[in-house]
C-alpha cells in the first residue's frame, strides 16, 4: 500500500470539508430549534464560525497541494470572522435586551452602577 502525499491531502481536504459542513449545519439548525433569542445566539456565533474555519482550511490544503505555491489568504477570512463574531453577538444581544428584557430580570451588578444599556456611565471619572 503506498501512501502518497496526494492521497493524504485528499483525505485531509475531504475530512475538513465534512467537519466544516457538519458544524455549519448544526449552527443553522440551532437557530431553528432553540427556544428564545438569547439561546439562539449561542449556536451560530460558535458553530458556524468553526464550520467556516474548517471549510477554509480545506481550501487552503487543496490549493496548497494542487497550485504551484502555498496559499494562505484563506486565513484572512478565518481571522476576520473570528474577530467579528463576538462583536455581532454582543450587538444582537444588546438589541434584544433593550426591547424584551427588563433590568429586574437580570442579576444585579457587583458595583454601585447598573447595566450599561439602562444607565448612563458615571459622571465622576474616579468611578470608571
Amino acid at each position, binding site marked *: 500500500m503506498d501512501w502518497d502525499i496526494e492521497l493524504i491531502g485528499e483525505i485531509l481536504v475531504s475530512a475538513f470539508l465534512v467537519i466544516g459542513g*457538519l*458544524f455549519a449545519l*448544526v449552527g443553522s*439548525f*440551532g437557530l431553528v*430549534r*432553540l*427556544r*428564545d433569542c*438569547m*439561546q439562539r*445566539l*449561542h*449556536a451560530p*456565533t*460558535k*458553530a458556524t*464560525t*468553526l464550520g467556516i474555519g474548517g471549510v477554509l482550511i480545506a481550501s487552503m490544503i487543496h490549493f496548497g497541494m494542487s497550485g504551484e*505555491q502555498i*496559499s*494562505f*489568504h484563506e*486565513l*484572512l477570512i478565518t481571522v476576520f470572522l*473570528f*474577530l467579528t*463574531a*463576538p*462583536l455581532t*453577538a*454582543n450587538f444582537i*444581544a*444588546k438589541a434584544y*435586551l433593550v426591547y424584551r428584557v427588563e433590568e429586574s430580570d*437580570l*442579576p*444585579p*451588578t*457587583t*458595583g*454601585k*452602577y*447598573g*447595566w*450599561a*444599556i439602562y*444607565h*448612563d*456611565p*458615571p459622571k465622576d471619572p474616579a*468611578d*470608571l
Partner: protein
Amino acid sequence: MIKRLFPHPLLSLMLVLIWLLLVNKITTGNLLLGVLLSFIVPAVTEPYWPNRARLKKPLLGFEYVAVVLWDIIVANVQVALIVLFKPQDKINSQWVTVPLDLTSPEAITVLAGTITLTPGTVTAMLSADAGCLLVHCLHTDDPEAVRDEIKHRYERRLKELFQ
C-alpha cells in the same frame, strides 16, 4: 525619530503581514509596497489612537491564543451536542455576573470576545462603570463554577499580559 515614523509598531507589522496575505504572493515588490503602506496608514490614522495599547509580556499572547483556540474547538463540540440531543425543556440557561479585575479597555474587549467564543457563554453587556460583565450561559447547573473558570482561565492570563 523612530517613534515618529512608526507610532504603532505592532500595527505596522500587522499591516505588512495582512498585505502579503491579501496579494497571496511573496515578492520583493509586494513586500516593499506593504512596508510603504505600513508607513502611511499609521501616520494618517494616528490622531484617532492617541494611546498605544501596552503589552507587558507579548510572548504570553501566544499561550493565550493557543488556549483559546483549543477551547473554541471543545466549545463547538459541546454546543453542537446540546443543540442536537438535549431536550428543549432540559436546557437550563442562566445569567452569570462576572466581576472584573481588569481595567484597560483593550483587555476587557479581549476578555469579552473570548467569553463569547468559548464554551456555552455569550457576553451580553458591560455594567455602566465597567466593573462587571453580564454573561449568558446556554446550559449550566452551577453558575459560580462558570464564573470562577472564566476568572481563572482567561482573566488571570490577560492580567499578566496587559498589566
